[in-house]
Structures are given as C-alpha cells and as structure tokens.
C-alpha cells in the first residue's frame, strides 16, 4: 500500500529555561493512503508534538525540529517547505482538529466565517459562495438549522457542536490527510461516540487518511488500522490494530490495555493504574524509558535502549525481553508473563 506520509527519525525539542526538553526523540512511522493510524500514549509522551510537526506548527524561538528529521508527504520533504508551500499544504492537503474546540475557535468571529476562511484562500471562492459552502459543511457534520447556526459565535454552541464545527473547518477543503489530536477528550462519553462517527464517516466518504491521537485505547479500536504506541517521546510498539490489542508485546502496551475497564467482568473491579511517572525529558535515561515502571525490568534495561524486535508483518516492539539473550534470566526469575516472548527475527 502506498504511503501518504512517511515520518523518519523525527526529533523535536523545546528550549526552556530549565534546559532542552526532548519532546520527540526519533519517531518513525508511515500513514497509508486512505487508512487511519492511531497514536496512543499517556499525556506528555510527545503525541501532539509529533503531529504538530507534521502540520508545521512547531514555532521558534522555543520549538525546534532537529536536523536529520524527515517528514515526506507524497514523497515531498515538507520540512524544507517555504512559507508559500506551507500555506498551500496546511488546510488544503492536511488539516488538524484540536482537543478543546472552545479555545481552538476564535471567540469573536462567527462560525460560518471561520469555515469560509478556509474555502476563500484554498478554493478561490468569493464570500457568498464560501458562506453557502460553510452552511453545507455544517449540515454535513450534523448540526441542525445550519442556516441559523452559520451566523452564530462559538460560545453559542455546546461542546459537542463546537467539535463538529472544528471538523467542518478541517474537512472544508477536503484534505488528503486529517490529524485529529484527541478530538473527544474534552467531551462526555456519549458525545465522544457521535464525534468519532462523524470523523470516520467523512473519512470513508472522502478516502481521507487519518492520524488519530488519543490516550484512550477504547477510542481507537473501531477506527484505526494501525496503532503506534508512544512513550516518553519514542515509539515503543507498533502494528496492526488487532495485533496490538490481542498480542501486545511491550509491557507498557500491556499495562495500557490492562488499564481499560472491562464491561464483560463483574461490576466491582479496581481500576488498574500504571505506577510511577514517565521520565524527565530534559535528561532522558540512557536505557529503556519505561524501565523504572516496568515489573519485568532487567539490568540491561537501565543500560541500553532496546532495538525493535519484529513479530512478523509490521508488528514491532522495542523491549529487551524479546531478545534471545534474555531467555535465561527470565527462566531464572520465574515471573509469569501475560504475553508470549521472543520475536520472529531480530533487526
């Protein structure tokens, strides 16, 4: 399958008074044309920064995309884009939906104008045409009475409706790549499902490629074909949706899945949390970043970052447990594992 987006060794840092925060530390993944990729991970793991880099929203003087990073869109290096190329790319080729639609919409501009703006610059429509198109977009995303709503301001919309407006803005120019940065986090559960339906319907109709960011694995299951699991600025496991859900290979992924409450079990289950906190990204550890929180931690884990082990197809995880050399010490420890150890081959 052809890739619309190829991210290779992306590194992003923020320069703060405390020092250089290495938010993203060498991330590589591909997005297939017309498919959805989910990036999951807890807060602060670099998910949002990764996709902001894809939208060219990492701004100096504090933010910096490190040299050596590469983001190919349809085979073109977007990190070398000039201002004009960025303008043509953003909004028309790639669009983004932010987490909190209340702050992501301009409070002093009508919703219609905010949608129309996109159409005016990318499709060369005049104001009337663009506003008519904006009304149509509101109807598409399921907002009742779009003729009336198009003239209203964001504060006159409910949370779910505002997120629909964000979707309308993103889809206005029919982008090839849609980035949804935690689109449902600020909403309650019933609305979450509706919003995800809107996104996945539009994706199917237009054949849009989607990057969906979330820290909720439950959200991912129905939409994404591939899943990338991020931890402290790195990818620690990636693969097809089913592989990640049914054969997780990294202790972190397994803990994440374990933290999702099960509907099929009895009512009084304790919520499982992952103990500890992620490492400080100003001075990241030299070994595996999850080692301090991992129950299966071995000596090597604190010393060196593991390479990816492949499990057939595209399923890969970066964990020492799957290394052939680890087999002995694991036997000695007598620990039981919720997942099978050992990869198909070592890279």
């Amino acid at each position, binding site marked *: 399958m052809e890739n619309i987006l190829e991210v290779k060794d992306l590194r992003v840092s923020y320069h703060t008074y405390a020092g250089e925060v290495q938010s993203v530390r060498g991330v590589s993944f591909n997005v297939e044309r017309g498919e959805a990729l989910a990036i999951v991970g807890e807060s602060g793991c670099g998910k949002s920064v990764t996709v902001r880099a894809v939208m060219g929203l990492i701004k100096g003087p504090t933010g910096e995309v490190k040299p050596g990073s590469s983001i190919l869109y349809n085979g073109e290096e977007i990190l070398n884009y000039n201002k004009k190329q960025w303008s043509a790319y*953003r909004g028309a080729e790639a669009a983004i939906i932010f987490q909190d639609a209340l*702050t992501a919409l*301009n409070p002093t501009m009508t919703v219609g104008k905010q949608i129309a703006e996109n159409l005016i610059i990318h499709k060369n429509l005049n104001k009337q045409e663009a506003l008519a198109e904006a009304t149509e977009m509101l109807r598409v995303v399921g907002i009742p009475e779009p003729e009336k709503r198009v003239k209203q301001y964001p504060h006159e919309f409910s949370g779910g409706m505002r997120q629909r407006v964000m979707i309308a803005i993103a889809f206005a120019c029919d982008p090839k790549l849609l980035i949804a940065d935690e689109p449902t986090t600020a909403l309650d559960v019933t609305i979450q499902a509706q919003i995800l339906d809107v996104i996945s319907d539009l994706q199917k109709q237009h054949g849009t490629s989607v990057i969906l960011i979330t820290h909720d694995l439950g959200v991912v299951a129905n939409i994404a074909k591939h899943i990338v699991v991020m931890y402290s600025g790195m990818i620690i496991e990636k693969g097809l949706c089913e592989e990640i859900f049914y054969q997780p290979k990294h202790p972190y992924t397994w803990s994440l899945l374990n933290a999702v409450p099960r509907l099929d079990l009895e009512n009084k289950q304790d919520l499982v949390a992952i103990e500890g906190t992620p490492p400080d990204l100003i001075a990241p550890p030299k070994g595996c970043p999850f080692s301090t929180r991992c129950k299966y931690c071995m000596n090597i884990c604190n010393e060196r970052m593991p390479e990816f082990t492949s499990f057939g197809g595209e399923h890969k995880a970066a964990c020492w447990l799957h290394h052939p050399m680890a087999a002995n010490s694991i036997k000695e420890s007598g620990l039981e594992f919720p997942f099978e150890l050992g990869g198909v081959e070592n890279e």
Partner: protein
Amino acid sequence: MLKYTIQRFFAMILTLIIIATATFFLLAAVPGDPLVTKAERLSEEQKERMYAKYGLDKGVLERYIITMKGFFVGDFGESITFPGETVWSIAEAKLPVSARLGIQQMLIGITVGLGLGIIAAMKKGTWADYTIITLSILLISIPHLVFGLLLQYIFAGGVVNILPTIGWPEGDELWFGGWEYTILPTLTGCFSYIASYTRLLKTSMLDVVNQDYVMTAESKGLSNMRIIFKHVLRNSFIPVCTNLPMSVAMCITGSFFIEKIFAIPGIGLYFTSAVQSRDLSIVLGWTVLISAMYIIVVFITDILYTVVDPRIRIRGGKR
C-alpha cells in the same frame, strides 16, 4: 437594552448628585470664602450686599439646598471671579478650544500608538521592538511640561524657526484651520497616548498570539497578515477598550499644563484659576460637567464592548 439604558441613566444621576454633594461640602469646609480679597476695601454695607448677592450670607445647609435645586435645572450660579459669566457661558466659549486640542492629541496618539503596538508585537525580540518599547517608556516618563518647552525651543528658534510658540486659531478657524498653531501642543500631548497604547496593544497581542485559535488559524494555511488582522487584532482590542474612556475623559481635562505652556485660551486656564480663587459655582459646575462626561463615555465604552466581543451581552435587571 432599553431597560439597561434607563437603569444606567438613573445610576448616572445618582452618581452626579453624590459628586455634587461631596464637592459642595468640601468647598464649604475650606476656611474663609471667595469674597475675602474682593470685599477687603468695601464698606460694611456694601460687603453685606455683596455676600447677599452670592448667597454667602446664608447657612451651609440652606446654601446646599439652593445649590441642589439649581443642579437639577443646570443652574450653578454666577462666577465670582468673572462677573456675569456662568459655567455654561465659559464652557460654550472655551470648551471647543480644549476639545479640539484633546481630540487631535487623542486621534493621533491612539492611531500611532496602536500602529507601533502592532509592529512591536509582530517583530517581538528584534531591534524594532526594543526601540519602540524603550521610546514609549521614555515618552511616558517625561512630563508634558518638559516636552512642551523642549518642542518650543527646537521648532521656534532654537534649532529651526518654523512654528509659532504660542496662540491658537480663533473665529472661523476654531475647529478647522490654523494648523500651524496646533502642531506643537498636539505633539506634546499625544506622546503619552502613543506610549500607553503601544504597550497596551503589544502586551495584549502577545497574549492573543499564544491562544489555541491562532494555531487553528495557522493550521488553515492563512498568511501571517491575515491571521494578525482577522484573528489577533480584534481579540487584542478588548483590553484597549477598557482604556478608552480614560483617554476620552483625559482629552478634555488633561491638557491644563499644555494650555498654560502654549497660552491656549482653553478651559484649563479658567478652571485652575477658579480653583485658586475658590470660585464656588464654577468649580462645582465644572466638576459635575466633567464627571457627567466621564460617566457617559464609560457607558458608551460598555456598549462598545458588545460590538468588539460578541460574548458580552447587555441586559437590564439582575443576573
């Protein structure tokens, strides 16, 4: 909206009554009276007649009642220092002069100030930003007095001799024309507007630029100019609106010093001399007039908010 306006109107009247009362009793509390110097060489009988003419022979409370009765029909009585004149006749003759000076200062000051503010915010961290901000701090720290004299020295003899130092257009040119006389006083006064509005808008814009909706605008592929003018500016104007009533009020009352330096026959001269000679009716009348102007401007600003920020709604009654 109508209900709100009516409520505000009654609140205004009440405020003015309180202001008038406070001013009256403060003036009455000061020992001595305005006629002391005038009546010095008069006979006892003439003195009595004079005191009776201005109502100063009566008790404080009685005078207060008379004053407040006059307040409601806009009659503050005759001036003591300028016989035959009232607050209204002085205002009619002198207010246009002060108003034109103030309006010119304000228009130029706010326009230039907002322009520089935009530049400083957009070029944040560059020499342009530092120059503008340093200058504006300098401008706001130097009093009008110094600026006025400095400008007079530079443009009227010291360096070049191209502008008149004193005077003001009169007659047909009262509102329009005679520009060369107005340049120096206007310049002197507009610096403080420039300084405060530059800094106000810059701070406000930098705050808005970091908002999420600006990132949304960027992600749409809008050009920087479009983002600034369509998304950033309007939101940055909200704090500017708060400052406007102060400026408008200042535009009438703030030029006293400048009027003195440039010998401009404005209202400032009369008001200061009225305070010095304790010209009761003029001081009281003026205080009430200026307060009224201020209150009205604040009211207009409140309405202006609703134009700039659609989230703000005006309605009467309790929330």
